[in-house]
Every structure is written in C-alpha cells, then in structure tokens.
C-alpha cells in the first residue's frame, strides 16, 4: 500500500516537472488566462483535434495488438498471472459489457460497439489530459457535442425501429390524451437537451479539472498538483463511466417494450 502511494506520488511529481521542463520560456505552464483564452478559441499550442487523433491512434494500436493476442491465445486460453495491458483491457471491456447487459437487456450486442467505443475513447482522452502539454479532446465542446449527437440519433432511430413510429411518439404524449399538447412540448425540450447536457457535463468536469491543476501548478509548483492529479484520475474514470451509463440508459429507455 505504502509502495503504491509512493509510486503514485512520484509519477505525479514527474509529470509536474515534465510540464515545467516543457514550458522553459513561459513562467507558468498552463496558467489561468491561457486556458481561458484557449477555451474561447483565441489561441492554443496544441489543438484538441491533435489529442483526439493521438487517442484514436493509441486505441487502434491497442485494439489490433489485443486482437492478435486473443487470436494467439485461442489454443491455450490461460489468463496471464500478472497485471499487464491485456488484463487492463479485459477488465474495462468486461466492465462495459456487464453494464450494457444490465441496462439494455437481450439486445445489448447491437449497442455494445457504440457504448464500448465511447467508454474507451472518453477514458483515454481524459487520461491524456493528465499529461502536461496534451490537450484532452474531451475538454473541447465540439468533440463532446459530436458524441452527444451520435447518442441522440442512435437512441431515436433504434427506438423508432424497435417500437414503430406511432408507439414511439406516444411516449412523448404523457399519460392522458388531453395533456398531449403540453407534454409533447416539454418532452421535446427535455429530449433535445439530452445531448447538450451530456456534453456540457463532460466538458465542464474535464476543463475544470485541467484548470484546477493548471492554477495550482502555477501557484505551488510541486507536491500539491500531484495530489490534484490523483483526484483528476478519479474524475477521468467517473466521468467516462457516467457518460457511458447515461447513453446506455437513454438507449434502454427508447428500445424497451414494457409500457
């Protein structure tokens, strides 16, 4: 336990120093105003698109190597006894599979690729944000809104496909027929706010955490930012979990038949 804590602390300290080494000419690595300017789209060193590209590359390499590992271990399916990359991927994939199966039910295999990809993409982007100098793509509203809109179209299209357009629209109408005009407007607003709220939640959390680390790096230089980075690790996992969970819940609400 002590060893783990110590190594975590030293990793955080290493990241902090790396951030300072990179920003040799600039007095504060990511200071408050730089992030604000970056958020308003004025200027930035590395755009979030670079982060997204990097994560996509990492995910492609990881996926291909995991695939070749699975193919090679078909003859001798004994799990590895030490905690490596393969075990890590198996852990996350199993977790996402269980989550999707619990929430969506029998037709979970249709949606598992989407939900699993979202989880991996968001998680790796969030973790990339903890490395100084890399802008996480989830910090930008464009990436998050794109993912939110994909989820929105997915659950609407599959909901209509599963229930038929008449029965699907009847969900919007409320319990009794004379409430239809009121309920329809309310439900329409609530549904169209869903992708916005999904993406705003992720953006606010990651951007806020990034800014917190930046401000404390500017103030104290050592020790304190590494503790906040540990907190950021927690936020990275929880936020990717929340995004995936909410997407799965929206999909399951749209495709379920019990009404």
């Amino acid at each position, binding site marked *: 336990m002590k060893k783990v804590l110590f190594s975590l602390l030293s990793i955080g300290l290493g990241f902090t120093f790396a951030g300072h080494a990179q920003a040799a000419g600039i007095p504060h690595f990511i200071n408050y105003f730089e992030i*604000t300017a970056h958020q308003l789209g004025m200027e930035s060193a590395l755009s979030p698109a670079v982060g997204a590209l990097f994560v996509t590359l990492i995910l492609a390499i990881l996926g291909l190597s995991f695939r070749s590992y699975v193919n090679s271990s078909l003859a001798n399916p004994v799990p590895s006894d030490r905690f490596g990359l393969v075990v890590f991927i198996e852990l996350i994939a199993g977790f996402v599979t269980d989550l999707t199966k619990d929430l969506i039910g029998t037709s979970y295999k249709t949606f598992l690729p989407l939900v699993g990809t979202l989880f991996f993409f968001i998680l790796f982007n969030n973790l990339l944000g903890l490395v100084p100098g890399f802008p996480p793509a989830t910090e930008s509203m464009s990436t998050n809104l794109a993912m939110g809109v994909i989820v929105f179209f997915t659950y609407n299209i599959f909901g209509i496909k599963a229930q038929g357009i008449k029965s699907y629209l009847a969900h919007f109408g409320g319990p009794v027929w004379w409430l239809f005009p009121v309920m329809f407007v309310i439900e329409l607003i609530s549904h169209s706010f869903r992708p916005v*709220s999904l993406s*705003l*939640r992720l953006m*606010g959390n990651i951007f806020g955490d990034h800014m917190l680390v930046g401000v404390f790096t500017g103030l104290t230089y050592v020790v304190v930012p590494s503790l906040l980075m540990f907190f950021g690790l927690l936020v990275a996992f929880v936020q990717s979990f*929340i995004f995936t*969970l*909410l997407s799965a819940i929206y999909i399951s609400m749209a495709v379920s038949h019990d009404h």
Partner: protein
Amino acid sequence: MESQAGLIAIAAGLAIGLGAFGAAGGQGRAAAAAFEGIARNPSSKDDVFTPFLLGLAFMEFQAILSFIIAIMLVGKF
C-alpha cells in the same frame, strides 16, 4: 467599462460560490443516505453504488453549469 469590471468579478464569484453551495449540500445528503443504506445492509453495496453515482452526476451538473457561467463572466474582462 471600468466600473463594470468589479461587478463582473463579484458576479463570477457569486455564481460559482452559490452553485457549489447547493451542489455540495445535495451531494452530501445523497452520500449520507447511500452510506447509511450500505452500513445497514452491506450486501446492497453493488446495487446502491450505480444509482448513487448517477445521482451525484446529476447534482454535479448544476455546479458545472455555474462554473461554466463563471468562466464566461471572467472571460468578459
């Protein structure tokens, strides 16, 4: 514009302060209830955990909104 700068600063501080106040209160109540439930019935841990986290996310969203508004206000300087 000179006289508005102080007002904007006060507004930004109030926005994030009040947002954090409400969200922290709500999250504290939710956490207290969840932990009490788990303490009374430890086997319900797995069932309580996911809805608990979901509720926290919804409460945190209000704080996140006020944070975004505070950032937008500060960007007006």
